[in-house]
């Protein structure tokens, strides 16, 4: 059993809710590196789901996860309070992000992608890279970890679809401006919804700027045992949980990923309906 040490609601617009939990898992906290994730199962009847480690404190043994309430399991996670317990919590999984010397790194986070991006931004900043961060969301209310990101970025930009905050437009609008201003960029890291990562990769491909993306494939075990998380990268099948989750954005078959992620859409609805959360906005 893994204890919930702290809970915080990061966003609650009535439609979108994002929560942060600190879970007591000292072994995971000790081994965590940016890019890692955990698999958790809330209770006996629960499914195993992957979540990125947003932060970890080796001293207190706390592992921070940030989840967007999109379906049954994440909503159940959102109902937990400090003092509650999670049945299973295993990690850290995946390959840690690996940065060979990069002078100027542009870190792009879309929506919830900011959560997994944040530990990487912090790490890059602390190890001497020049960090430009671009954060995008549908509107102002959905911008996550703004002050944390700002603290560890040399340049910081915000883009919202509706213009309610920062630049009106997409993260690629700002990236294009940066490239046009002739600022040399050594590496782009983009984490967010697949259409965003695909758009960023398409843009940087033209300028031959190395681009890493982090995939959120469907997973069951997270240890290379099932192949549920497979993805085509450069024409080869890879397992996201052991070969990733970060891959070269110029080589990933995003359309296949998108399709595989929607595999259980009908079943996911079925669970929500069973729980009485089948309405437009689900159980809030």
């Amino acid at each position, binding site marked *: 059993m893994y204890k919930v040490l702290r809970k915080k609601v990061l966003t609650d617009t009535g439609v979108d809710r994002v929560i942060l939990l600190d879970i007591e898992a000292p*072994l*995971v906290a000790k*081994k965590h590196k940016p890019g890692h994730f955990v698999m958790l*199962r809330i209770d006996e*009847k*629960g*499914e*195993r789901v992957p979540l990125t480690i947003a932060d970890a404190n080796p001293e207190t043994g706390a592992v921070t996860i940030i989840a967007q309430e999109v379906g*049954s*399991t994440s909503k159940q996670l959102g109902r937990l309070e400090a003092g509650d317990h999670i*049945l*299973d*919590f*295993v*990690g*850290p*999984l995946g390959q840690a992000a690996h940065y060979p010397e990069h002078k100027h790194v542009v870190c792009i986070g879309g929506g919830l992608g900011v959560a997994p991006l944040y530990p990487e931004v912090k790490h890059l900043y602390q190890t001497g890279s020049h960090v430009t961060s671009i954060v995008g969301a549908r509107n102002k209310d959905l911008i996550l970890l703004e002050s944390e990101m700002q603290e560890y970025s040399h340049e910081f930009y915000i883009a919202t679809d509706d213009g309610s905050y920062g630049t009106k437009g997409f993260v690629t609008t700002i990236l294009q401006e940066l490239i046009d201003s002739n600022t040399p960029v050594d590496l782009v890291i983009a984490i967010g919804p697949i259409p965003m990562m695909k758009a960023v990769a398409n843009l940087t491909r033209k300028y031959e700027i190395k681009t890493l993306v982090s995939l959120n494939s469907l997973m*069951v*075990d997270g*240890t*290379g*045992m*099932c*192949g*549920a998380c*497979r*993805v*085509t990268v450069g024409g080869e*099948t890879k397992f996201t949980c*052991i070969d990733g989750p970060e891959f070269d954005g110029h080589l990933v078959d995003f359309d*296949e990923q998108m*399709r*595989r992620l*929607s*595999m*259980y859409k009908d*079943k*996911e609805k*079925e*669970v929500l309906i*069973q729980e009485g959360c089948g309405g437009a906005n689900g159980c809030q």
Partner: protein
Amino acid sequence: MSVDKRARFIGREPMALLEDELRVRGFSEVALGYTEEQAISEAKRCLKCKNPKCQLGCPVNIDIKDFIALTAEGKFIEAYKKIKEKNSLPAVCGRVCPQEEQCEVECIVGLKGEPVAIGRLERFVSDYALTKEHKKIVCEVSAGKKVAVVGSGPAGLACAGELAKLCYDVTMYEAFHEPGGVLMYGIPEFRLPKGIVKEEVEFLKEAGVKIECNVIIGKTLTIDDLFEMGFEAVFLGTGAGLPYFLGLEGENLNGVYSANEFLTRVNLMRAYRFPEYKTPVYVGNHVAVIGAGNVAMDAARTARRLGATVHIIYRRSEEEMPARKEEIEHAKEEGIGFLTLANPMKVIGDEKGYVKEIVCQQMELGEPDESGRRRPQAIPGSEFTLPVDTLVVAVGQGPNPIVTQATPDLATNKWGNIIADEQTGATSIPGVYAGGDVVTGAATVIKAMGAGKIAAAGIHNYLTNK
């Protein structure tokens, strides 16, 4: 129905089977086991050979003659204890051992008729003992030394059991949330009830073995960490969990599963009770399973129980099928179709990206190859299409790379299997031992157990002389 089944077992006591119609409606165990009378009468068929060949066929060298003699006298608990001297998981082995290739193939009675049903007797006395006898490993003086066992499949369970008998302080680490390895996530309930596996695990706990689930060695803790934590030896029984695919066009379409994923969703995560249990599985009306080993039969029979019509697709002929004969028979009784000499060519999807059909090519048998099996070759122009909603690929597994990637000093062969001494289980790192599927590649429960036992002896020897 039950009458013609008896006919197949002329000579030996027949095993009652669940009726075909009941089987495909649930996950209850299919083979129902012997009654006391049946067990005694079957045991009496044994000739008590002077040089019992059967024993040589058993990878863990059970004193088969003796346990059968005790069974014939109705001394079931004593018979059980006799088996336990050599085999720590008899209720499991009695069910899933390929007896027909191991102990029973050597039985002298088999020369003229049907061999003594050693596996069924082993199962009977174990089931009997599970209900009647509170088993206990008692160790007199603690050896005081800590040993870590990594992986809780048959290899790990056997190794931990042996080490507990020798009074070591044993901690078993398991990546999954439940111990048991393939016994838990792979082999389905209808062939091996999970209660039996849990019972064996409880037994180890009572003997003082600590079990830590949700710990991945190579990620959560490294082998170096284990030594720093005071463990003086480590056993690696991490299995062959990495599923192979064929590399076919369309293999990543929605609805194409590895057998591991399909079976894990259904068995370990209980997707057959979705949505009460939250893990979904997608099974349409038509399922095809590629491959013909035990894993393929398990996947096919599982899909059948989830309501689909099912076909096995196999490149060679029925004679070459690696699955146990009994499993192939059960699959047929349950209405599973067999497309033999059929080579999968590509997978075709619908406009939404779900698998729609599989294209195969008909093969014929040519000259024997190096393995002595006749090599299948394609019949030109024989392509055919099978409509499917779900495709399960069951063409084998390799070793999981997590431990070896995190431990560069650990020597492996070209397939990534850990290299371990056959006599002791020792690897290239002093104090680190290995056994089971991670060493041999996908094999059998009893072989993995045997390797776990050998490594326990190797570890004991190493720590005694250290």
